[in-house]
């Protein structure tokens, strides 16, 4: 946690474009800020701002440990990582939702009928918690990608995955059985930074809150 700089961890990938736009609106420096560059750290001496280009799943870690003061990352990642960070602002963009999806042929079943079955997911924590809270038990099979493949190949009876439009599900003959939760992008903050660098962080948060409320071109992407 460098005192003179405000360090912000950014998520690479689909969130980056709307994030850069938001930073620009909040009058933060963005010139040259892009993930195509080989740089992983972007420093703006004059403004005292530093950005870290991170994998989305790493953003909560950087923020929790204080390597970054602030972070911009999806709620889905925050929930799955279960890190101790302040969740300050709902930035509204990057909408997606966690769902339980099953093969077409099972579409009218009740969730309870899937007790003791196997579920494939990239998000074992959320999956386990969701079923457990409903008094159900499932075998969670952790996969790292292409989760839709698992029911097709008989590896699992259902999946828990992130869905934005639902197209991927449809292409793989899967249907949404239950929605677990909605997710949008959040501004998170390290618990110590929030106190030590309050004079810099609080005005920024208020500015961003105003931008999000005003809906200036930042609605659900």
């Amino acid at each position, binding site marked *: 946690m460098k005192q003179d700089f405000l360090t912000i961890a950014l998520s690479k990938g689909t969130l980056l474009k709307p994030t850069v736009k938001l930073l620009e609106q909040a009058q933060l420096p963005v010139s040259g800020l892009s993930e195509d560059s080989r740089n992983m750290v972007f420093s703006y001496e004059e403004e005292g701002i530093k950005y870290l280009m991170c994998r989305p799943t790493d953003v909560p870690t950087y923020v929790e*440990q204080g390597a970054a003061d602030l972070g911009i990352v999806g*709620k889905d990642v925050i929930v799955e990582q279960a890190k101790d960070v302040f969740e*300050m*602002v709902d930035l509204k963009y990057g909408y997606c939702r966690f769902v339980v999806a099953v093969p077409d042929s099972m579409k009218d079943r009740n969730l309870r009928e899937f007790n003791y079955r196997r579920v494939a997911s990239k998000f074992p924590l959320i999956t386990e918690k969701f079923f457990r809270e409903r008094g159900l038990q499932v075998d969670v099979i952790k996969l790292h990608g292409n989760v839709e493949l698992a029911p097709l190949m008989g590896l699992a009876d259902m999946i828990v995955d992130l869905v934005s439009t639902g197209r991927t599900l449809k292409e793989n003959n899967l249907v949404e059985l239950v929605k677990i939760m909605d997710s949008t992008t959040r501004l998170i903050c390290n618990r*110590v*930074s929030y*106190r030590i660098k*309050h004079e810099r962080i609080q005005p920024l948060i208020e500015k961003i809150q105003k931008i999000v409320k005003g809906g200036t071109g930042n609605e659900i992407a």
Partner: protein
Amino acid sequence: MRNRQIPKGLRDLLPDEVKVIRNMEKKAAQLFSSYAYEEVMTPTFEYLEVIEAGRGSRREDLFLFVDREGGILSLRPEVTGSIARMASIHLHDADFPRRLFYMANVFRHVQPQLAQYREFRQTGVELLGAEGIWADAEVINIAVKLLEIMGLKSFKISINQLPIFNSLLDESGLNSEDRSLVRQLVEEKDLVELYRLLEGLDIDDELKDTIAALPVLHGGLEVIKRIPYVEKNRKASAAVEELIKIYDALKLYGATSHIVVDMGVLRNLDYYTGLVFEGYSPDLGYGLLGGGRYDNLLGQFGLSCPATGFALHMDRLALVLPCREEERDHYLLGGGDFPSLIAQAEKLRKQGYIVEMDLGGHSQAELEKKIEGKENWTLIYLD
């Protein structure tokens, strides 16, 4: 090779690291004693019932095992609960207030990473049997002085009065389910979800805004003026009055330069009953110390008695301390004339010096090379 591994989250401390810890302990003990606090020791593990009556630690954070009589035991995750139990047995007819301090290893089943260890050292004070602002101010002042004498240059101690938040919540007329949801979101610091929940609740708008604003209110004493609804709630305004008085008392100690009022210090809402505080360094993303008033804890062990205290996470502090202090002068004795060498060594040790004997039969030149560049080392060579 299993026999070269140690359990996850535990650490070996090498001489340089132990020096830092021992040095911290010495300074802390001196400071605590100067405020008339006396050291106590409690068992490393206790019955689970004792631990759970304490801070309400989550069970998955505890290291549990069973004794042969069938009792469920837990390694202590903190010391305050044990001290409360001890006080209820041994100190119930003592003269109060009693001032106690401790230094102890505690055990928590956390995910290991920087500043998160499964075994770490805590030191802390407990002021038992004293109510009121002067007791609170004494304990907070000790926390400030403690970080100061450790040599920490810039740090902050955030203070808050829990009754402000609690009495507003009580007044909201929310059912207990919504209330505990609000508390949970506040403790998890999920402000996004908190705002969403509040928006949908049927309570006074001004009260709603106040509850939503509290977790991010932060600054000097003036932030209190920014919580509009509080005046309407008698309990909350009494708590605010008290916070101001404690702040004034800290002025008398000359301790306010590190103090901030932070309505967001809302931790362990079921455990603490009054003033709470946390200490931070800008060099570490985790808190260094935390504490507050817990008037209901001792009652759980049958001794109804107000209490306040704090604990410092020594392993975290060690991560941010400036470099170590000067060591005492160090003598290296070598050569073949052992009668003279030993006599000389014993004499120097009595004078308080560190004396190291060469056991390898090295030559004078070799030993001179060994102490090269070490400022406070001296070689005595007698052949």
